[in-house]
């Protein structure tokens, strides 16, 4: 009996030892893919899989794309914190600025020759991947230029213009937009002008500004006019009862869009895709035109090279090929409906399609103009901490009828508390 047990224990300890050795093997020298290859992390629908399939051959760099499922950012942060299994190339979302305080975790793309192609891309988009110190950590992928999505049939019933150019001309400012909204809800009592005030008024109006919450020295400027104006517009939209109070992309949002209870919303180009998925019954009933208040951007992503990258030159070749103007057009815009950051791909006739969901309108016209007019703005690493304070107080205004002035003061108090916690004031 004893030898059997001893053999079993020996086998067990052997297994355990192997397991321990296996885990202790991951030091600084641990990579996701074998020597001589590069790893690239991206999330679903951020890069065309067709394009990725062609890439290693076309660029001449053997790299392995790895589509990362849920909790993308947590997984990336974990690999950075552990200094092991860090991807060589990594997709970064529109919160790229949260990496600015640790920009030394990335390789400065300017050092790899990014300057040579800078003029090919939208300047404001390019600038968002560059830290205030001038280190470039994110190469432009897609963008999210905004426009006004509206229902001409409902506009007609309310006595408003219906053609995109006329609508854009009449509803050129937010004030005019809200005024038209009052006209619409009066004529059509069952319909609301817009889905909700925090994201389709406040966020969108703020996205059109040239400044936001912090300046480039990370000093708080969020009590300035750029924020207060957007706030006041949202409060005014609420006062006029223009909002359907349906959260973006919620069940209510889909239902309200399908049944024509919401006549307009200001949103990014990708919102059109969500709309056509969620409210396909309304195909042909929607149009797009320039947004009130001017051009803005919501969303969009970047590609970065981490400092753990084994061959930065090759990695940069991969990035600049994947996101070349031609590939952004063919595989980004036309295949994946990812709006390009390269100027020539926005203007290219091959990207100008008549969109049946918008009644045959060439919607790209509108988004191209918007994309080119977005004002450069500094997005700080701490916007993800500051913004929720304003959104949450605006929500109190519409959902609980909180006094807007009290809500504004409470938002500033909360921001103050958060900033002092972060050690910024």
């Amino acid at each position, binding site marked *: 009996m004893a030898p059997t047990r001893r053999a079993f224990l020996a086998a067990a300890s052997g297994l*355990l030892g192997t397991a321990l050795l296996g885990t202790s093997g991951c030091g600084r020298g641990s990579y996701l893919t074998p020597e001589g290859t590069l790893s690239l992390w991206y999330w679903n629908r951020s890069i065309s899989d067709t394009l990725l399939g062609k890439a290693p051959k076309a660029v001449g760099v053997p790299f392995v794309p790895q589509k990362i499922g849920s909790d993308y950012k947590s997984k990336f942060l974990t690999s950075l914190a552990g200094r092991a299994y860090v991807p060589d190339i990594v997709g970064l979302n529109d919160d790229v600025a949260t990496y600015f305080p640790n920009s030394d975790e990335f390789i400065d793309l300017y050092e790899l020759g990014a300057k040579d192609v800078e003029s090919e891309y939208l300047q404001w988009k390019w600038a968002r991947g560059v830290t205030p110190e001038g280190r470039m950590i994110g190469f432009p992928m897609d963008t999210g230029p905004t426009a006004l999505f509206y229902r001409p049939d409902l506009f007609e019933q309310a006595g408003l213009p219906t053609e995109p150019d006329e609508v854009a001309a009449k509803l050129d400012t937010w004030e005019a937009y809200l005024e038209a909204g009052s006209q619409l809800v009066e004529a059509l009592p069952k319909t609301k002008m817009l889905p909700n005030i925090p994201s389709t008024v406040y966020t969108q109006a703020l996205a059109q500004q040239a400044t936001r919450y912090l300046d480039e020295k990370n000093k708080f400027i969020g009590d300035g006019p750029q924020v207060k104006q957007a706030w006041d517009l949202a409060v005014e939209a609420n006062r006029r009862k223009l909002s359907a109070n349906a959260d973006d992309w919620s*069940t*209510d949002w889909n*239902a309200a869009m399908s049944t024509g209870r919401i006549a307009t919303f200001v949103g990014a180009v990708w919102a059109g895709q969500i709309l056509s998925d969620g409210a396909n019954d309304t195909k042909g009933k929607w149009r797009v035109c320039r947004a009130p208040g001017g051009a803005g951007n919501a969303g969009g992503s970047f590609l970065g090279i981490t400092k753990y990258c084994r061959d930065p030159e090759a990695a940069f070749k991969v990035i600049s090929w994947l996101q070349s103007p031609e590939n952004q057009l063919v595989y980004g815009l036309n295949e994946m409906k990812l709006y390009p950051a390269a100027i020539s791909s926005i203007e290219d006739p091959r990207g100008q399609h008549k969109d049946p969901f918008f009644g045959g309108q060439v919607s790209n016209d509108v988004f191209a103009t918007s994309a080119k007019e977005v004002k450069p703005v500094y997005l700080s690493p701490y916007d*993800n901490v500051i913004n929720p304070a304003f959104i949450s107080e605006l*929500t109190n205004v519409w*959902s*609980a009828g909180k006094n807007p002035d009290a809500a504004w003061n409470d938002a500033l108090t909360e921001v103050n*508390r958060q900033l002092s*916690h972060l050690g910024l004031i």
Partner: protein
Amino acid sequence: MATTSIAANAGKDPGAAARAATGRKRSEYFSLYLAISPFYILFAVFGLFPILFSAYLSFQSWNGIGDMKFVGFAQYQFMLSDQFFWKSIVNTFQIWFISTIPMLFFALVIAFMLNQQMLRGRSAYRIAYFIPNVTSIVAIAIIFGSIFSNQFGLINAGLQAIGADSIEWLNTPWGIKIAIAAMVIWRWTGYNAIIYLAGLQAIPTELYEAARVDGASWVQVFFRITIPMLRPIILFTVITSTIGGMQLFAEPQVLVGNSGGPGNEGQTMVLYLYEQAFIKNQFGYGAAIGWGLFVIMILFSLINWRLVQGAGTRGLRRGARA
């Protein structure tokens, strides 16, 4: 085998035998420790280390990537003055209260009915009641989102059909909590019913037969035999659903998002921790919240333990007498 060989050697050289015995014992112990070591090693790596590290982390300011900065008790000071932290605690207890009581009540009734001898296709029912527990939480959230939807939800359709005003469930403080509690109830009632069923089957049938002979009604049987005999099991489910309720996370997250919906009314303690650490990248503060929760759970467990101890032994004694 080892003991016999030692006994055989014992007569010849007691000292050597003793040395051999301790040597033998040590290697014997060693192999025993080795045999149980996988658990302790895994626990050390995935349990003990994270606990100690989070204690260390709670005194630092860290965004998850760069260098940590020692801040002393600043995170704890911030936490005590953080109205959202306190709000998340209140939310958690409110949701726990309105979900646990109906859940355990329904579970008991279902188990009692499933235990009836005359019921046909009992295993089918058991499986049916257990299915919600193994259903994907995201799928459940989509369904409950449609049921409680503010304007076009199923419940509001029902309310309008009978002429009542619709309620914006996911915009009102109690609406959010009721929706979350409903998800918890739906998901865990079957699970608790199966546990109760096991408890019911352990009750000797003689008791029921005796009660029937004495002419007891169903209600009397339920309250005089079933409940007292089941008391230890009930206490077990109270404790497990308390633990589950304090850790409530996935339900509110998928139903109303990371910030807990309008007014943070659906933000539970663990959801708040998650939001601070993984959405706002304040890992030091997240760790401090974790230790705040630890203290609260200790306090709550002490109260629970006192209650359970008194009631538990009483239940057992009564059970023994019966």
